[in-house]
């Protein structure tokens, strides 16, 4: 069973209508949107509404595999094509024949494979590794990415011709923070789903105050992050704890909710002896104004290490980029990381060049 596309916002309703109009055309589709917005859910909906729904839906993540492995996964190989190829293996293009091939993270596909992909899309034929023959394939290609492919084209990491061939139907899914009205229906859906999956758990639905708080949170990890929070809540049985675990830097917009423990006057952890440099540094990453019990629950060296290193990395990256006039290849060289890693980190830390 695939997840339905949940939402009542204008943009989701429009996407549903679009899916309904194009599901039977089998034209190439490009789905874009931030990580966690539900690109695969949209691909599944297209498949479910199409006349290919009785055939295979085959997914491959183009970012998860090294180039050679990705190639053999996509096109398959003949026996003896390379060391270790003891027997013939069909590729995804073959398994997906008459069905759907979902190319996730297409923006991360290496350039050499992009040309091969373009050839298959143009000719409808492919050749397994080590084979002399071209095979006909009839797959409906749905691709997805969280990259801005037009920028990738400009940076020469994505082929323009492949972009136009995939971009026949374009479905852009806005981030959750731009469609807050979808948050309540999503909570309702996942709450019910997890309740049925784990009937012994006793999480509670958010009350109206909590819901308002949830709607005000910007959800950088989008629907996937919200899903995880609901799942966690089933176990922790406290929305307060869920909020406490959300990344700090995004919490400034959330109105504070008084909890029972605070009203009861549990001793805050901060005292004057402790208010020195050390607590200053720690308080940047952990809220020291809570009770000691809760504080000890919050302190995880791994989590703090990540927050602290992210903070420093962000500053260093911005610093170097500013010094080199936002020349990203130069900055990558100076920082001794790959160009791709730099783009990834810029995206993750939201480091953007100043708007002219």
């Amino acid at each position, binding site marked *: 069973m695939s997840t339905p596309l949940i939402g009542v916002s204008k943009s989701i309703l429009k996407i549903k209508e*679009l899916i309904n*109009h*194009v599901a039977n*055309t089998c*034209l190439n589709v490009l789905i874009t949107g931030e990580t966690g917005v539900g690109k695969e859910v949209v691909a599944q909906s297209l498949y479910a509404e199409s006349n290919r729904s009785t055939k295979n839906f085959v997914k491959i993540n183009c970012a998860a595999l090294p180039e050679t492995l990705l190639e053999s996964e996509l096109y398959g190989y003949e026996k003896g094509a390379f060391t270790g190829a003891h027997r013939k293996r069909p590729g995804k293009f073959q398994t997906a024949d008459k069905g759907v091939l979902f190319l996730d993270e297409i923006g991360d596909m290496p350039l050499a494979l992009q040309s091969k992909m373009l050839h298959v899309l143009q000719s409808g034929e492919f050749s397994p590794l080590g084979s002399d023959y071209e095979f006909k394939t009839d797959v409906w290609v749905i691709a997805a990415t969280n990259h801005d492919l037009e920028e990738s084209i400009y940076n020469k990491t994505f082929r*323009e*011709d492949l972009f*136009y*061939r995939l*971009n*026949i*139907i*374009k*479905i*852009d899914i806005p981030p959750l923070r731009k469609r807050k009205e979808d948050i309540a229906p999503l909570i309702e859906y996942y709450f019910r789903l997890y309740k049925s999956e784990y009937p012994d758990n006793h999480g509670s639905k958010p009350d109206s105050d909590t819901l308002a708080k949830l709607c005000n949170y910007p959800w950088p990890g989008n629907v996937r992050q919200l899903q995880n929070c609901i799942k966690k809540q089933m176990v922790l049985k406290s929305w307060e704890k869920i909020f406490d675990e959300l990344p700090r830097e995004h919490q400034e917009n959330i109105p504070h909710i008084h909890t029972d423990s605070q009203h009861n006057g549990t001793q805050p952890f901060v005292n004057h002896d402790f208010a020195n440099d050390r607590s200053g540094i720690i308080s940047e990453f952990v809220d020291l104004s809570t009770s000691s019990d809760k504080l000890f629950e919050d302190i995880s060296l791994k989590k703090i290490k990540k927050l602290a290193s992210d903070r420093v990395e962000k500053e260093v990256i911005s610093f170097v980029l500013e010094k080199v006039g936002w020349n990203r290849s130069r900055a990558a060289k100076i920082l001794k990381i790959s160009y791709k890693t730099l783009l990834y980190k810029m995206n993750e830390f939201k480091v953007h060049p100043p708007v002219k």
Partner: protein
Amino acid sequence: MANPSRLLIVDDNEDILSTFYEFFNSMGYEVKTAVDGFAALKLLRDKSNFFDCLITDLVMPNISGVGLITIVKKEYPHLKIIAMTGYGDQPGALASEAEADVVLFKPIDLFKIENTVTELINQKNDKQEN
């Protein structure tokens, strides 16, 4: 004109859209407009066989011009199609592959495009009479 020819013009640039609308209207055509391929497809499915000619841009959100042309050629094979593009060769080549009747590159002279429309509609009428 007793029976004005009916045009559907599709472009995500509203300035271009209104310029085309004014121009073809003043030339005696009955004109409808759409801001992207999706809006155009809905209009076409709503009024099948209403239009004589479709003039569409290629790079647009939702359903691109190439997508629209492919769908229209399949569902309404008699509708004549003019594709316009300002994005280099790629989209134009795809539009030809999708069997647009004519592909024009921007900037486009309005009188020239009107000539093309007349030719295409005459072709269509000749075919129907034979």
